[in-house]
């Protein structure tokens, strides 16, 4: 059975980072599109239009914050993975005593 090389693991790590980043963007876009639709419907009812607007604002901020934290975590994980792989590569290259 063959093993993945450091370079291949680096490629997999990059791909996971790209996939998570792309997925978060797509999910946030879809989430917002669905939420906008529901809030637009509710805002047509005059008595609750004002609180719905406030609620929409709060929802957008909370959801935006969650998505942003996932992006930051993803970036952090990618940086850590790069550092670990660099270290492993250097350790592999250095001559043994």
């Amino acid at each position, binding site marked *: 059975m063959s093993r993945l090389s450091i*370079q291949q693991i680096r*490629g997999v790590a990059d791909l996971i980072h*790209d996939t998570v980043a792309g997925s978060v963007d797509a999910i946030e876009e*879809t989430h917002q599109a669905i939420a906008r639709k529901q809030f637009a419907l509710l805002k047509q009812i005059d008595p609750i239009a004002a609180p719905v607007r406030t609620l929409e604002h709060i929802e957008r901020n909370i959801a935006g914050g969650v998505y942003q934290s996932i992006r930051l975590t993803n970036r952090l994980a990618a940086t850590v993975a790069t550092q670990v792989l660099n270290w492993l590569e250097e350790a592999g290259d250095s001559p043994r005593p």
Partner: protein
Amino acid sequence: MSSQQHGLSEPTPQWTEWGISVLNGMIGDYLHHRRNSLAIDMACYHRNRPLPLTTADLLRVHPNPGAKLCILLHGLGCNEGVWAFSDTPPDNPDSSYGTLLQRELGYTPFYLRYNTGLPVADNGKTLATLLDNLLSCYPTHVDDIVLIGHSMGGLVLRSACHYGIRQDCQWVDKVRRVFYLGTPHEGAILEQLGHVAVTVLQTVPNPITQIIGKILDRRSQGVKDLRSGSWLAEDGLDDDLEVGRPDHRGAAPWLAHARHYLLVGTLTEDPDHALTLLLGDALVRLPRAYGQSPLAAGSGPAPNPHIKIFPKVDHIRLAHDAKVYEQIKLWCGNE
């Protein structure tokens, strides 16, 4: 640095190489543009390693190089392992069309591995240059080249011949025969259906279907090129092509001085069976006018067309089937 340049000790592609090849087929253009180290660079492969194109390396691999070359090009999401009859290395006796042709007819085989997610035309251009480099460092004079392409590999070969002529490559004049095994000259039904599905999903005004359509649309340009069998950069991207409309943008002649052979499989014994008419070899349908000259819409007749149908040989098996090899050998033996 690319994936194939690292620590591979197995003589044949293992699950990691197969996984990477499949990934390249699916999103290879993305990997290439992102400079991801999983992206495969086109190269000749020997025992699961890229073969440097130097005279010394070629002599190491082929100590008795002949004047006849055989170039084998795999299809979408595959690697040179697809040619193997069994689990033995493709350069072992009896294990692939290449080694059998070497032993029985004196052809020196070279197996290529490439990023099948890139546009077919890009791979064709790269192959044209690579074959020129191969010939320039080949230890002896070459007077006969046979090209064997499986599935998408056949389109890449046509593309390489086209760009080889344009780039005035010396190898093109030496090509005597080109074998297309299950090559979708008229497009692949699976990709045509995929395109319809993506179009419908993206048209429906629903965020969920649109996101699914968006994800499916991320498939590689190599896959999209299979919709109409595009192999010229001038064709533009297949995204612009309407479904069901014949593609006349790829109008370019077949390599005039070479003989072209189409080997196609079917799912059933009877080529006229409804299942075969619908699905062909499971991925590629029979040429519309098999037995006649027009092969691909707009590309004109192939000179001296030869088409052979192999009943009950599915798409992948076309690359490693004893009957298919016997036919290739027969045609290679005919002057």
